[in-house]
């Protein structure tokens, strides 16, 4: 019975925890600019994420090591410090974007600018981690995140032309704006394949004391949870294609994205969007702060568990406290969260190989995985998608910066 509860909870939390400011902003911009043309990027990213999440759960269940622990033990500290530098920097940028997302959601609800919300939001996120346990954070925030299902309702209610929607799932090269198209595609891949999600998921498997009997459940959670999550992103893209593209509105600011669901759900659409973003970004902010703290704690051998009182794992608690407070600074200075979001998603895609290549090697390591090593399917799917993301990123990001 306990397993079935854990199973449903696992799927629910991965659905609720899937969307965050990155996936919504990139999907909304893609829909507004290119209609259904970029659905394939969400599909590709989600498929890759399913494999990565399943692999991180399996690694934890079989070897009782998280990805970070195994990376340091297997590749040595010098290489590990490079991975840590890259991943922590990018995750920090995404954290700033998430805190900004919470602030912007509160701004459209209350009218008070997101800069004023920066400190209270950071303190609230910190307090949740200071007092909360792992299960409260993982399950609570994600259950609230279920309000993001309203995107599907909005998309369906706008009666999309399902034929061309399906057509969007096939990769196409656009006529004009190639650089912008590539940049948004890379940002979508970066938004859906988020390394912090893997580090968080594998640490969660350890906190929940998984063992090899959890492997089938892990596969179902990864499969269904991420697939539903992928549908949510696609729903955002479809809704944006129907709401914004005909009007020629390109989504650059949060205030524009806020109108996403109003054509379909009128004032409900407005308030649901604000709430959906508030809870989705809250869940993501918690996950990212924990992932960064896990990175330091697991990498350097400190005690780490969200279930301990802060003084029992003081360095771990110190790291997430410092990270959250520092993340509020750029927002106080008025940095636009949407710009940070798009940049951090593209950077995530560019630094994916740094996180995934060592992970792939680990997943083929008999001393960690024994008989549960990766099949050639997982290896090739992940390797191909990472290669695509990296190549796309290296081409389109400079183009977008220097001018297509």
């Amino acid at each position: 019975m306990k397993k079935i509860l854990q199973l449903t909870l696992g799927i629910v939390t991965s659905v609720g925890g899937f969307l965050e400011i990155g996936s919504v902003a990139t999907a909304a911009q893609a829909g507004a600019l290119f209609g259904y043309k970029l659905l394939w990027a969400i599909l590709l990213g989600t498929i890759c994420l399913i494999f990565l999440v399943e692999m991180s759960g399996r690694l934890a269940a079989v070897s009782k090591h998280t990805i970070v622990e195994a990376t340091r033990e297997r590749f040595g500290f010098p290489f590990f410090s490079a991975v840590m530098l890259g991943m922590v920097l990018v995750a920090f940028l995404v954290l700033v974007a998430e805190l900004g997302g919470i602030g912007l959601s509160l701004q459209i609800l209350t009218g008070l600018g997101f800069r004023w919300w920066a400190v209270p939001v950071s303190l609230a996120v910190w307090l949740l981690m200071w007092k909360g346990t792992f299960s409260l954070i993982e399950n609570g925030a994600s259950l609230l995140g279920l309000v993001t299902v309203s995107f599907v309702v909005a998309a369906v209610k706008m009666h999309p032309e399902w034929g061309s929607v399906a057509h969007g799932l096939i990769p196409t090269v656009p006529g004009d704006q190639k650089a912008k198209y590539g940049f948004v595609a890379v940002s979508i891949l970066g938004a859906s394949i988020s390394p912090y999600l893997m580090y968080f998921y594998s640490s969660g498997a350890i906190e929940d004391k998984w063992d090899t009997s959890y492997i089938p459940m892990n596969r179902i959670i990864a499969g269904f949870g991420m697939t539903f999550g992928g549908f949510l992103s696609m729903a955002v893209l479809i809704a944006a294609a129907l709401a914004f593209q005909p009007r020629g509105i390109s989504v650059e600011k949060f205030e524009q994205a806020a109108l996403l669901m109003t054509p379909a759900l009128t004032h409900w659409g407005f308030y649901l969007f604000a709430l959906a973003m508030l809870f989705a970004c809250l869940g993501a902010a918690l996950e990212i702060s924990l992932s960064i703290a896990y990175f330091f704690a697991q990498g350097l051998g400190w005690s780490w568990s969200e279930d301990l009182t802060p003084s029992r794992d003081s360095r771990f608690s110190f790291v997430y406290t410092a990270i959250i407070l520092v993340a509020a600074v750029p927002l106080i200075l008025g940095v636009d969260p949407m710009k940070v979001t798009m940049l951090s998603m593209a950077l995530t895609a560019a630094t994916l190989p740094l996180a995934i290549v060592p992970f792939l090697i680990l997943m083929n390591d008999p001393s960690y995985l024994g008989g549960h090593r990766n099949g050639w399917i997982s290896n090739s799917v992940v390797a191909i998608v990472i290669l695509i993301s990296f190549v796309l990123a290296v081409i389109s990001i400079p183009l977008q910066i220097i001018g297509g």
Partner: protein
Amino acid sequence: MIEINAELLLGRKVCDVNGEKVGRIEEFVVETSDNACLVDAYLVGASAVIDRLSAWSLVRPIQKVLRGRSVISSYRVPWEEMDLSDPEHPKLKVQRSELRHAN
């Protein structure tokens, strides 16, 4: 009698007695007996790294091709044949040809 940080030896280039580059120190084969830890031999050369990363299942197809051209080769250097008087530049006390290949 000198005391050195073994972890800093990792990756250091090793030359044989007449200065020819043999490879890099990648592993220490040790023997633990009644709570002492004695170094039996050093593994020198790139393939020792692959061994350590045990990424063989990823690398094996490539390795079969390269083995022919001995690009990936690694030597098992018994402790007597390694001169660590200058830890910055480890040297062998024998010629490269006399070394035995590891597995």
